[in-house]
C-alpha cells in the first residue's frame, strides 16, 4: 500500500511541469505587485469585517443563549426557532436576503454602513446562531453547586449569572469560540456577493480580481498564505489563554 502511494507521488513529482506550476501559482513578480495593498487594504478589511461580525454576533449569541435557558416559554421558543433557522441556512442566503431581499421588499431599506454593513449584519446573525449554542453549552457545563453557593449568599439570579456562571462558562468555551471566529474569518469571503468598491474588497475578492486581471493564479496562493498568517497565530494565542485559565481552575 505504502509502496503504491510512494510510486504515485514519485510519478507526480517526475511528470509534473514544475515551470508551469511555478509560473502560475508561485510567481514572485505577481506577488511583489500585490503588495502592499493585499495587507493594507484586503487583509485589513477581512480583519475589520470579522471583528465587527464577531463582536455583534457574540452579543446576540449571549442574549439568545440566556433566552434559550430562560424559564419563560416564548423566549425559549424564539431562541430555538432563531438558532435552528440560521444554522440550517447557507450563510450566503442570509447575506443575499439582507443585502438584496430586504431592499426589494421594503423600499428605501438601507443597512447602516451600506453593503459592508449588510455583510456584517448578515454574518452577525449567522454567527450569533452558532455561538448561542456554544455559550449555552458553556453555561450548562458550570456545576450546579456554583449557582447554589452564589444564591445562598443572597445573589439574585441575574447577578449569579453574570458574576459567577458566565465568567466560568467563557473560560470553558474559549476553544470552540475560537473555532467560530476562524469560521467567520473565512465567511467574510462571501461579502463579494453584495458588491464591492475598490476600497471594500476583502482578501478573497481582492485576490480573485487580480487573478482575473492578469490571468495568473498566484494571487490565490498569496491570499491563502495571508489567511493562514491570521488564523495560525490566533490558534496559538488561544492555546496560551487556555493554559493560563487552567491555573485558576
Amino acid at each position, binding site marked *: 500500500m505504502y509502496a503504491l502511494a510512494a510510486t504515485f507521488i514519485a510519478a507526480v513529482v517526475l511528470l509534473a511541469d514544475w515551470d508551469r506550476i511555478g509560473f502560475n501559482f508561485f510567481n514572485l513578480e505577481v506577488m511583489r505587485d500585490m503588495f502592499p495593498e493585499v495587507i493594507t487594504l484586503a487583509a485589513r478589511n477581512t480583519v475589520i469585517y470579522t471583528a465587527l461580525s464577531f463582536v455583534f454576533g457574540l452579543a446576540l449569541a449571549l442574549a439568545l443563549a440566556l433566552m434559550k435557558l430562560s424559564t419563560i416559554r416564548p423566549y425559549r421558543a424564539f431562541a430555538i426557532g432563531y438558532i435552528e433557522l440560521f444554522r440550517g441556512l447557507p450563510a450566503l442566503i442570509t447575506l443575499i436576503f439582507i443585502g438584496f431581499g430586504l431592499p426589494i421588499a421594503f423600499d428605501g431599506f438601507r443597512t447602516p454602513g451600506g453593503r459592508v454593513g449588510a455583510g456584517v449584519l448578515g454574518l452577525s446573525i449567522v454567527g450569533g446562531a452558532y455561538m448561542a449554542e456554544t455559550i449555552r453549552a458553556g453555561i450548562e457545563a458550570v*456545576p450546579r*453547586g*456554583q449557582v*447554589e*453557593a*452564589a*444564591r*445562598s*449568599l*443572597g*445573589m*439574585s439570579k441575574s*447577578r449569579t449569572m453574570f*458574576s*459567577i456562571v458566565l*465568567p*466560568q462558562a467563557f*473560560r470553558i468555551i474559549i476553544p470552540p469560540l475560537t473555532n467560530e471566529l476562524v469560521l467567520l474569518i473565512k465567511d467574510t469571503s462571501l461579502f463579494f456577493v453584495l458588491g464591492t468598491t475598490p476600497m471594500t474588497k476583502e482578501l478573497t475578492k481582492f485576490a480573485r480580481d487580480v487573478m482575473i486581471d492578469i490571468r495568473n493564479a498566484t494571487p490565490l496562493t498569496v491570499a491563502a498564505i495571508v489567511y493562514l498568517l491570521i488564523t495560525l497565530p490566533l490558534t496559538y494565542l488561544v492555546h496560551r489563554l487556555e493554559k493560563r485559565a487552567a*491555573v*485558576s*481552575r
Partner: protein
Amino acid sequence: MTAAIEIRDLHKYFGDLEVLKGIDFEVAEGEVVCVIGPSGSGKSTLLRCVNRLEEPTSGTIIIEGNDITDPDADVDRLRTKIGMVFQQFNLFPHLNVLRNLTIAQTKVLKRPRDEAEEVARQVLERVGLSEKIDEYPIRLSGGQQQRVAIARALAMNPDMMLFDEPTSALDPELIGEVLDVMRGLVRDGMTMMVVTHEMTFAREVADRVVFMDEGIVVEQGPPHHILVNPETERARRFLRMVEAK
C-alpha cells in the same frame, strides 16, 4: 428564647417520591442542632429547604419571624442572614480567596471594597488561613477549601449557619481542621444546624440531636440521650451501623 428557624408541617416531593413527610422543627437562637440519619432519610433536603435552595412542596419555614416560604418573601435578603456550607465546598474557582470572600459583600450587601476586604481578612484569620488570601481555590487542600467556604459564609455576618455534611467529601486526616473551625463557631455562640455523620462531634457540641429516617423526625433530644440511649429501635439500629464502620 426566640426561634431562629421555625419549620411547620414541611412536605417535599421529588416527582411522586415524598422525601419529607411533615416536619415540625425549631432551632432556637444560639442553639446547635445536629441532624443525623441514614442516607436518603431527607436530612439534606430539609436543610436545603431552610434557605429555599430546595422549594418546599407545602409547609412553612420562618426565619427570625420572616416567612421565607411566602411567595412575596425577599428570599435573597433573608439568605444573607443564613450562611450555608456545602459538602463539595463550591468555592468560586475563577476568583482568588479574597475575591471569594468579598464578592457577595460588595455586590449584595453593597459594602465598600475597603470594608469588605477588612472583613475578609478578619474571617480568614478566624479560620486560620490568612496566608492563603491570594491563592486560587484549586491550590488549596480540601480541608482548606472548606475552611475558606466557612469564612465566605461568615463574611456576610449571618445570624445562623447551615452545614450540609461539611466533612463528608474530605480525606480523614483533613476532617479535624474543619471540625476545629466549627467548634470555634459554637464557642462564639453561632446558631447552627448541622447535617453530619460525625457522631463524636455531634455528641461534643450539639445542644440537641435530631434523628431522621424516611422523611420524618423519629427522635430528638440531648446528645447523651439520642446518641447513647435512644428510645426507638430505628435509631438504635442506625447507631449500631455507624459504630460498626
